[in-house]
């Protein structure tokens, strides 16, 4: 009986203790705050949970060497605030003009402290509902027919306080360090804790595991004081200027490439870390060997009995012993707090560090759970900017617009224009829109034609991966055909091993625009909204299925697509032929 009573009281206590909000956001980093801003603007009931005492706790620690690699351009020669966001990779979106990052730092590559300061201001100036010192340690579901998504999300924090939400926005980022286990990995120091004082490395020989920006940033810091640095990782180095992907190695960090190629002792190697083993000798020096040798050796024998590669191959590359080995292997998503019932699964292949989500940023396993921010990068990993502030600030807005339509009957914002403004509205957007520019290939403007094509409706920055669901996701109708405006690089231009400086790489003639290599606007025309099936069958590397007609606006050196003959005229001809009409202006 006492047991039953106890259970009953517990039940009552817990149900009474649920604090309810329509929207719960986990994490007060850039994407969490960005989501909070839009929710606040729309007057929604929301709360942001932050485990730290201040926003942006990741930036308080990382990058360790404090230099952000997102650009903060002070001058562009233009006053267009939307255009300038194309070259401001740190600001979040808001109407408050004080909250532009250039007011927080003058550095082209700002210090991470400026970001922390900026995020603090963003939360406080906009009076966002952030609950600090609240670490969500468990998330589970409660089935309920009445709930928006057929279930509520139940969140538990470190003090066993429970929260109940209709919609869950996960903005926790990627903060769990990637660790590789191999024999001797106990001798490896992590990026999270390694000293950032170059003096600690004076006269040392260093091996760095990893080939990302954190690895090169670490190397850059100690390049001048070490004997030499070697870097090892499975894949070849990918330079962001060759791949057009900002997550690859940025020029600001690549000092080691110079010293390697100029034979100044530093070097790069390729190899699978899983095959590696590290052996410490009596002097405390670390030797590289292969797991294979360790497995075959006589276990009882001492360290000296371990075969080193150079014993058989006397010019083995990493035969010199190292003083330190540093692991800089990046981060992964924290899957641990989600109950199995949420079915939040890791992605496949090189996306396994990310949770699986749909192109609408909703979890594949749970309706109503959206992943925001850098953890949502699986949608465009190695392609676009969805893993970075200058990309996910727009995808977060897109998610907000999807939610407004789904739960509050607020359709996707749109403007209706007469058809005479068709060319103008496209030219305006491709020249200034920053969401299209940053989230190329992912977010697209949609033009829905009205009957008889006398007017059209303009929707901005819709996630193109869910184009087939447009009517359901936006609350707008597309019965008379549509244009999709998107930005693309040339399909065969970028890549890790491609020469992006070859002669004639730039296309100048409008009639060859489809061969443009650099980022340029592409307009797809569909007589009917593509179906889900057609979206699935689209050619690989194509953001969209085969259109009824396509137009490329030829790439431009200045990214200024306003030339009357090279840019606007061919576009007008394309639009005219799609609509079978004449869009010229005449003098009376």
């Amino acid at each position: 009986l006492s047991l039953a009573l106890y259970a009953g009281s517990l039940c009552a206590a817990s149900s009474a203790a649920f604090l309810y909000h329509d929207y719960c956001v986990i994490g007060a980093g850039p994407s969490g705050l960005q989501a909070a801003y839009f929710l606040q603007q729309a007057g929604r009931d929301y709360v942001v949970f932050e485990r730290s005492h201040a926003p942006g706790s990741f930036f308080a620690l990382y990058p360790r060497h404090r230099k952000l690699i997102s650009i903060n351009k002070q001058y562009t020669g233009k006053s267009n605030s939307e255009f300038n966001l194309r070259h401001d990779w740190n600001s979040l979106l808001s109407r408050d003009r004080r909250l532009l990052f250039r007011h927080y730092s003058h550095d082209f590559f700002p210090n991470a402290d400026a970001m922390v300061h900026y995020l603090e201001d963003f939360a406080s100036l906009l009076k966002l509902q952030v609950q600090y010192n609240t670490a969500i340690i468990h998330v589970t579901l409660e089935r309920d027919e009445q709930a928006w998504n057929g279930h509520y999300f139940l969140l538990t924090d470190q003090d066993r306080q429970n929260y109940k939400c209709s919609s869950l926005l996960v903005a926790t980022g990627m903060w769990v360090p990637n660790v590789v286990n191999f024999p001797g990995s106990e001798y490896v120091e992590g990026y999270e804790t390694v000293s950032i004082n170059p003096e600690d490395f004076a006269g040392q020989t260093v091996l760095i595991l990893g080939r990302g920006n954190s690895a090169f940033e670490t190397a850059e810091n100690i390049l001048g004081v070490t004997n030499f640095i070697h870097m090892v990782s499975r894949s070849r180095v990918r330079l962001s200027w060759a791949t057009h992907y900002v997550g690859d190695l940025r020029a600001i960090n690549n000092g080691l490439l110079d010293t390697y190629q100029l034979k100044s002792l530093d070097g790069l190697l390729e190899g699978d870390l899983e095959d590696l083993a590290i052996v410490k000798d009596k002097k405390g020096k670390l030797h590289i060997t292969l797991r294979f040798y360790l497995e075959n050796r006589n276990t009882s024998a001492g360290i000296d009995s371990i075969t080193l590669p150079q014993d058989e191959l006397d010019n083995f590359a990493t035969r010199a012993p190292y003083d330190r080995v540093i692991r800089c292997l990046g981060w992964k998503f924290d899957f641990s707090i989600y109950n199995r019932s949420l079915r939040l699964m890791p992605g496949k292949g090189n996306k396994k560090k990310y949770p699986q989500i749909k192109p609408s940023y909703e979890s594949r396993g749970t309706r109503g759970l959206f992943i925001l921010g850098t953890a949502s990068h699986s949608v465009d990993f190695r392609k676009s900017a969805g893993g970075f502030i200058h990309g996910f600030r727009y995808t977060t807005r897109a998610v907000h617009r999807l939610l407004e339509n789904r739960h509050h009957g607020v359709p996707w914002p749109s403007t209706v224009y007469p058809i005479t403004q068709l060319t103008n509205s496209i030219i305006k957007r491709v020249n200034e829109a920053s969401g299209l520019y940053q989230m190329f290939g992912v977010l697209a403007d949609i033009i829905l034609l009205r009957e008889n094509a006398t007017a059209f409706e303009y929707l901005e920055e819709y996630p193109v991966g869910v184009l087939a669901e447009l009517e359901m996701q936006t609350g707008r109708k597309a019965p008379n055909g549509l244009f999709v405006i998107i930005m693309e690089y040339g399909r065969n231009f970028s890549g890790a091993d491609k020469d992006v400086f070859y002669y004639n790489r730039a296309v100048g003639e409008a009639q060859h625009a489809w061969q443009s290599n650099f980022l340029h606007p592409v307009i797809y025309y569909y007589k009917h909204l593509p179906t889900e099936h057609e979206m699935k069958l689209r050619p690989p590397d194509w953001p969209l299925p085969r259109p009824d007609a396509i137009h490329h606006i030829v790439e431009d050196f200045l990214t200024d697509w306003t030339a009357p003959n090279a840019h606007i005229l061919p576009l007008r001809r394309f639009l005219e032929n799609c609509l079978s009409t004449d869009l010229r202006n005449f003098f009376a």
Partner: protein
Amino acid sequence: MSAQRDRWVSSFSFLLFCASSIPRRGSARLLEELSPQEYFSSLQAGRASLAYFSHNASPGAQPFLEQIENSAEALQDYGISVVKVNCPKEDVSRYCGKENALRKAYLFRGNMLIREFPTDALFDVNSVVANVLFALLFNEVKYVETLADLQNIENAVKGRSNMVFAYVPATGTAEHRAVMEAAFVYGTVHQFVLTTEAMLLRDTGNDEPDVSSARLLFCHCQRATDLAQPCRRTAMGQPLTMLNIHRHLKLMGAPLVTEVAEDPEKVSTVHLQLGLPLVFILSQKETYEADRRTAEFVAWQLLGKAGVALLSRDLVDLNILLRSNVALKTPDEGVPVKYLVLEDTDEVITLVEDKSKVGQIQEDEEEDEEDEDEKENNNQDIQDDQVVEAVSRDKKRELPLEQILVLTEETFHSALLETARTVVLFYASWEAVSLAVLRSYTEVADHLKGTQGVLLARVNCWDWPGVCTKENVTQFPTIRVYEKGERWVTYDGMWGTDELTSFIMLSRVSCPLKLATIEEAEGYLRGEFPSELSSYHHTSVLGVFSTAMNEAKEAFEEAGNILSGHVTTGMYFEDDALALSRKYAVSPPALLLARSGGRSVETIALSKQSAQDMVRMIRYELLDIFPEITVQNLPRYLQLRKPFLILFSDGDIGEMESKEMLKLAKGRPRQAFVACWLNLKKTPVGRGVLKVYFATVPSLPLLLWVNLHAGGQVFKFPSEQTISEMNVLSWLEKLKAGLEIPSSTLSEEDWKPPLPAYDFLQMMETAVPEVPLRTSHHRGDTPAPKSPGRDTTVREEPSQETKAEKGGTPGRDLRGTAPRLAAREKQGKRHSEL
């Protein structure tokens, strides 16, 4: 084969003869009359004969007998004799004895009875010939009733011979006869199959067949190897006559593609002999295989419509363009072979199917060739938007913009508060219409220099998108007049300097203006008050109300706001308003309307109460009774959506005409049409209008009835009549009664795109075939034809490349980027080595 042909030729010539002889009945009696003994003894083995047994006295059989007689000649041609056997009265043998036997005709081969026909089955020559041949050709022509039967036969002949499948709605018809006659000739070559089942026609893949007419399909079974697939079919397009069937079978028998190695002018094939065109696919050694495939593909498409030949350029020395890939030879004597450059196979097919286009395509090609010498492409890249063209031609001229205040995101709101009225032009500096309007705007600024209370400003939305979005500016350009930064009116008129100036001037005065005294009101109607506008020609509308009419006053105030800038409105509602209204013989609420320059004041009683109604009414009242149409005012009159009775005049119209027309306009209820005139000296575009109507400009003055909104008919008032109210009215009556013929009818053609766009989709597919566009290509809108079509275009590529090299003038490179400037090396094909 040759024997058969002879047989056919004879029947063919007979047919012609028969056709001419039928009307002259009984000219030659081929019908033998024999006794039963004579008949049966005359029967030869293997020879067929049709016999009719009769007693002399059977008058009911007379019509039938006539048909039999008429058929005798036709049947004789197939070696069938027709015999009338006269039965002796007492004969009770098998054929003569029985009563019902006498109502039949009997077909014998040798002395073997093959079939007996009831006389009502042989109702005319066609049915006689059809039925007789049908019976005789029992083995050659299979009759089928079910799809299974048809498929069995089809499978049986696959790989061996071709099949001719005919559907006739009924046996004994002319079509049936034609099929049987053809079967008589071709029966040993092709397997003939006949059906009268409409269902079968439907099942053979004809989705919506017209079952009331006969059809013939040639089934190419000889080359069919796959048992599961039906044979390829070629339907005969023409009606089923002996001649057409023969022609069709002959065409089907001709080789699919003829290889030719001589001058096309000298080539002659069966197609040309049969009056069909011959298409030459021009080939080269290098591309022979692809061309052969293209030719075969085209040939299948054109089977029965034209012949296809593969002409090897290497073997024939042709003095033609290298680019030409197709030639067309028509069967007409003396017409030279045409050489064409076509993009894909579809064009070849349309070329043949619509022969009238040949001339046009040819002309286009010639034009292109001329252009080719100067530039690479056609006119696609030449600016054909006159506004854009004018603006870019003028771009180096700097505009005197000092008079116009530049507003920014920071200064916008504060600037609006500083002056009573601020005119703001929202524009985009890259947009052509914006720049053209900016030009007019500077002229307006010049006109209004020194005018108090008006500030002209501009916002470049390309620099300050935030302001434009906030102000909800969705079109470029937009002009708004802001009043103390609160209310604003959007300008919706023409972008001309005068119109804009007048709008700005009129909107300076608050609308409606509240007048305090009768004197002010009178001054207002004379255009003397307010003094700002005294030097300005304008129409004034004065609302007269008594103090209590609040509802009407409010509505008028709202209407005045809406009309601000277009017309000045004033209102008077003092105690002595009645005195004012009495003077103009109206009772309040009423409107007094004083036109600019006009002496009289028009009065309108206000019955409608809503503001929108008032706006509509005032707008309507502002229109002239007999206006001179100008480019500027045309839209206002077009909006009425009524027919125009328009007098075109070279200069001012005569006094007489003017008087008569005015009478006409006033006399008729104004709802019916718009009476107006056009001065060609002031509005020269009228000349162009007349040219559209009449091709040349007719003698003037000219009175027209133009109904643009219904039918687009243009009627011309007879020039010999004088333009008087009476004459015009009676002419209009006749028009209404449909007694006049329109001089021309304006087409309702839409505004089509002036020129095609670059077809990047096709370029991508052609140049990068591995681009897997096709995988998603399941809509089936462009199936098989594309791949042979690609061959055609691929072949053209070498010539395009040479063009590109020639056309790469240094000036063009400037449009690229800096690296391109340095690139003087030969332009390789795109980075394939990557």
